[in-house]
C-alpha cells in the first residue's frame, strides 16, 4: 500500500511550493504495527517473569561434632526451645531439657507456632531454637519451621536429629511414633 502522492515534476513542484515538507512517499504502517505488536505479545508471554526464590541455609561443619555438642551444652536450658516435627503435620516442642511433662503439642499456623515463638523471643535473652525433624515428616514442615525462625528473627537455630530419648518421651506421652 504504497502511495506515490506526487511525481517530482519540477513544474509541478514550483506550483506547489507552498505545501513544503510533504514527503513524496508515505508508507502504510498499520500492518507493520500489527506485526510488531504480535511479536511483542509473543515475547512478553514467553519471558519467564518468575524468578526462583529461596531461603539460605548454612549447615555446621560436620567434623566439628564434638565442639558442636559442647556448644549446645553451653546453652542454658532456659534459653533453649526444641521443636520435634513428626509425620502427619504434628509438631511438638519442649523448653529446656526434655521431661515427660514438658512435651507439648502446637499447630503450625500463626496462632500456634508464630505466637509461641513471639512469646519465647520476648521473654528470653539470646534465644536458641533446635529444629528436629523426624525422618518421616514432610519436607514442608521443616521449611515452615525455618521460615518462622526468619520471621521471628531468631538468628541462632540449628537442625538436628531427633534423639532416641526424645522419641521414648513421645511414646510415653501416648504419641504414635513410627518405627524405623
Amino acid at each position, binding site marked *: 500500500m504504497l502511495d506515490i502522492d506526487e511525481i517530482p515534476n519540477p513544474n509541478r513542484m514550483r506550483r506547489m511550493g507552498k505545501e513544503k515538507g510533504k514527503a513524496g512517499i508515505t508508507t502504510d*504502517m498499520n500492518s507493520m504495527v500489527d506485526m510488531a505488536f504480535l511479536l511483542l505479545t509473543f515475547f512478553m508471554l514467553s519471558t519467564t517473569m518468575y524468578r526462583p526464590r529461596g531461603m539460605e541455609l548454612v549447615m555446621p561443619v560436620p567434623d566439628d561434632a564434638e565442639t558442636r555438642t559442647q556448644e549446645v551444652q553451653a546453652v542454658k536450658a532456659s534459653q533453649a526451645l526444641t521443636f520435634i516435627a513428626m509425620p502427619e503435620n504434628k509438631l511438638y516442642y519442649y523448653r529446656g531439657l526434655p521431661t515427660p511433662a514438658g512435651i507439648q503439642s502446637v499447630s*503450625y499456623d500463626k496462632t500456634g507456632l508464630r505466637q509461641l515463638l513471639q512469646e519465647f523471643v520476648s521473654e528470653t535473652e539470646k534465644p536458641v531454637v533446635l529444629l528436629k525433624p523426624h*525422618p518421616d515428616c514432610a519436607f514442608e514442615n521443616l521449611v515452615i519451621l525455618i521460615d518462622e525462625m526468619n520471621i521471628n528473627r531468631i538468628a541462632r537455630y540449628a537442625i538436628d536429629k531427633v534423639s532416641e530419648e526424645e522419641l521414648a518421651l513421645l511414646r510415653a506421652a501416648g504419641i504414635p511414633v513410627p518405627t524405623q
Partner: protein
Amino acid sequence: MRFSGVFRPKTPQIDMTPMVDMAFLLVTFFLLATTFKTGEVVWVQMPRSVAGLNLPMTDLLTISVDKKGQAYLSMTSPQARRAWLQKHAQVNQITYTEEEYKAFELMSGFGVPMSQLRSLLQTPAEERKRFKQNGIPIKGDKNELADWVILARVTIPRLRIAIKADANTPFRQVEDVINTLTDINVLRFTLITQPKKLEDNAGY
C-alpha cells in the same frame, strides 16, 4: 467519489511511524531479556515460605527431589553443561560424541545413574520424556550425586547450589541430599520455595 471545488474530504491519517518505533523497541527489549524456558526434568510442588532471596539465573545447580525422593540435577546455562560433561568424561574416562554433547547442552536436567546417561543422551529429544529416569544414585556403593556436584563446582568455581524438594517428600530423602552436600563440604545452599505472604497461615 469525486468532489468538485474546494471541499475534498480526506480519510484521516495517523502517522504510525513512532508507534512502530516504540513497538520494535519493546520487541528488542523482550527479545534480549528472554531466556527460553526449557522443560523441567521433573515437576515438584515446592513448599511455601516468605523467604525473599532471589536466586541467580546463571551459575546455579539445582538438585530437585521429587515426592519419591529421587534426585535430579539441572544446571543453568548450556555452555556450563557442556563443560560439566567434559569434566565428567575426563574423570570417568568416557568419550562422548559431539551429538551427545549437543543433547546434553539442550537437556535442562537429568536423573539417571551414570551407566544410563549415554542411552538417555542417544534417545531423540522428543522421546526423552518417556525415558524412565529413576534419579541419581545417592546411596549404595557410589554416591554419584556427590561426584556430579564436585565436578560442577570444579567447572564453575562460583557455583550456587539449590535444593528444590517437593513439599511432601519425607524429610529423610532430603536429609540424604543435605548430608551428601555437607560431606563434600558444601555447607551453604539454598532451599527453593514458592512465595507466600506473611499473613498466610501455614496451611494446616
